[in-house]
């Protein structure tokens, strides 16, 4: 249980976790009842692997949201990083060079975002929205309508490989979840980040180097996007300029479904993981149940709202 100065006791984590898991369980039970193939190991592994890509993007975003910020540029970061890194891998045959490029671009974008938000005091919504357009334009210009595809198998293993029967992205996701949660909840830096969103005045008064921490969270968000770009390249064996446009909103939705608040101070990586899982389950369910394409936006919207509402009930009972 975290004591956050200025807010007091955050409601018992147990209740909130229970509510979030309840959402997943309800979805799972409904899908099991309606579809005979849902509960198969192969399907569940697929779902986890699909959720992993979404989680990688949302993980850094969770830290940004903790500071009461938002990063709208992650989708475009993934697109640009994937396109440039992919082209470099293709040209140089070096997976490491490509990986360094993707992470470098992600970190660089994050640094720019962080500087705009902390040094220039531009609202994060605006700064990252502007960055989104700039990055997307750069991606279009760089790719000129082409696709880069066909990468060495060393890279592809990251997306398609298995370790002891578990897809590699899922293993990485578990590791990231553990490390990230440890960082956010056990280290001083992590708690400072939460305080910046929850109670900026208290944070400043207690000597938290706010500007530096803000830059840090955006760099982390960018790095996460860069890593997601690598996983994308590995999984899809290709990259083109527009791959990011459909990734941003689901990433944000995953963080919010996971219980984070746009006002800051509240949110966990475990919650984001559950948010990503719920969104992936919705698509899986709609495909398995042959939900007509026209109805899919409604189903997705209803489940997102319902999941957040459930999470809020858990919050309320804890108070």
């Amino acid at each position, binding site marked *: 249980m975290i004591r956050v100065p200025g807010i007091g006791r955050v409601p018992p984590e147990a209740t909130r976790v229970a509510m979030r898991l309840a959402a997943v369980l309800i979805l799972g039970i409904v899908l099991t009842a309606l579809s005979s193939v849902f509960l198969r190991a192969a399907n569940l592994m697929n779902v986890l692997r699909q959720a992993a890509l979404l989680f990688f993007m949302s993980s850094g975003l969770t830290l940004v949201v903790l500071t009461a910020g938002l990063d709208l540029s992650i989708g475009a970061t993934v697109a640009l990083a994937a396109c440039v890194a992919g082209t470099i891998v293709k040209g140089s045959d070096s997976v490491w060079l490509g990986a360094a490029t993707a992470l470098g671009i992600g970190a660089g974008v994050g640094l720019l975002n962080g500087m*705009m938000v902390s040094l*220039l*005091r*531009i*609202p994060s*919504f*605006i*700064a990252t*929205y*502007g*960055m*989104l*357009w*700039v*990055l*997307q*334009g*750069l991606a*279009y*210009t760089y790719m*000129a309508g082409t696709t880069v595809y066909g990468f060495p198998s060393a890279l592809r293993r990251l997306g398609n490989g298995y370790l002891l029967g578990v897809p590699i992205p899922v293993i990485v996701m578990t590791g990231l979840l553990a490390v990230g949660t440890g960082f956010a909840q056990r280290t001083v830096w992590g708690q400072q980040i939460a305080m910046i969103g929850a109670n900026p005045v208290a944070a400043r008064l207690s000597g938290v180097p706010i500007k530096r921490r803000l830059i840090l969270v955006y760099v982390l968000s960018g790095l996460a996007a860069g890593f997601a770009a690598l996983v994308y390249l590995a999984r899809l064996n290709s990259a083109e300029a527009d791959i990011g446009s459909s990734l941003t*909103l689901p990433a*944000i*939705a995953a963080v*919010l*479904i996971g219980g984070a*608040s*746009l006002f800051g101070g509240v949110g966990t990586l475990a919650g984001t993981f559950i948010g990503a899982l719920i969104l992936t389950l919705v698509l899986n369910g709609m495909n398995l149940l042959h939900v007509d*394409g*026209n*109805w*899919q*936006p*409604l*189903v*997705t*919207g*209803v489940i*997102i*709202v319902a999941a*957040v*509402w459930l999470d*809020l009930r858990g919050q309320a009972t804890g108070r």
Partner: protein
Amino acid sequence: MTALALPKGMRAPGLLAVIAIMVVGFAAASRDFATPGNVLNIVMQSSTLLLVALPMTFVILTEGLDLSVGAVVSLCSVALAEVALATGSLAMTFAAGMLVGALAGMLNGALIAYLRIPPFVATLGTLGAAQSLALILTGGQSVTGLPSNLLFIYGGSILGVPAPILIIVAAYAIMHVLLYLTPFGSYVFALGGNREALTLAGISWRRMLMAVYVLGGAWVGVAALVLASRLSAGHPTAAIGMEFDAIAAVALGGTSFERGDGWLFGTLLGVAAIGILRNGLNLMAVPSSVQVCCVGILVILAFALEALRARDS
């Protein structure tokens, strides 16, 4: 009642500087830019966005966001097109558009004010509902064959003034009066900065917040009317993405996402900036990929200039 958050004279000078740079630059780069015909085009092209950005200002003033706007405009355009085909009456068409928009607003308001769902998530939900409804109603096709009285809304003029301009002037006037000259306007500011003040004054903040979203929905219906007239069709996905342009315009204009601080005229400037940018770049035949970059640069530059200016002062 606590004091109103009144606009402090000239705000968003960063935006004004950027607009000035663009106007001078485009006029120099293209001789077609600074002509009356082109200026008229910019205004006409921006009309739908302004009709959506004005109520969005109210929503953002309440520390909210409305992501459903694009989908609801599309849905309203479909609904009013069907009514226009069925009845041929402009009044009924108008009513249908506003009604559907207001209903969507009511859904948003219910989720946000009564179920306490954060606006980002709640309006995402409404987006899904509106999108699905529009697709189901039309089977994915646009609705055409609209009667000429509907086409008049975009293409016609009264006493030489194009109809859309009359509509947006009226819209701006109405919203200005609502925001700055009525009690409702002060409630809107209070909803963003100081909800307790409303409760202390015996006013249900939930009802006021609901009213903001319903009002927004009604205006979305008007925007849909203009859009449908421009396209001469109701279309289930025509306005997707409009919400982000609207939010950007409001933010550019100096309205803050927190604390109920804002400037309605700034929204007008924000819409103008976006319209000028796109028009100018098209006249210069700048490649589309570079245009995409420029939109981002506009947004960042306007704020960066303001930030640098604030640091120096």
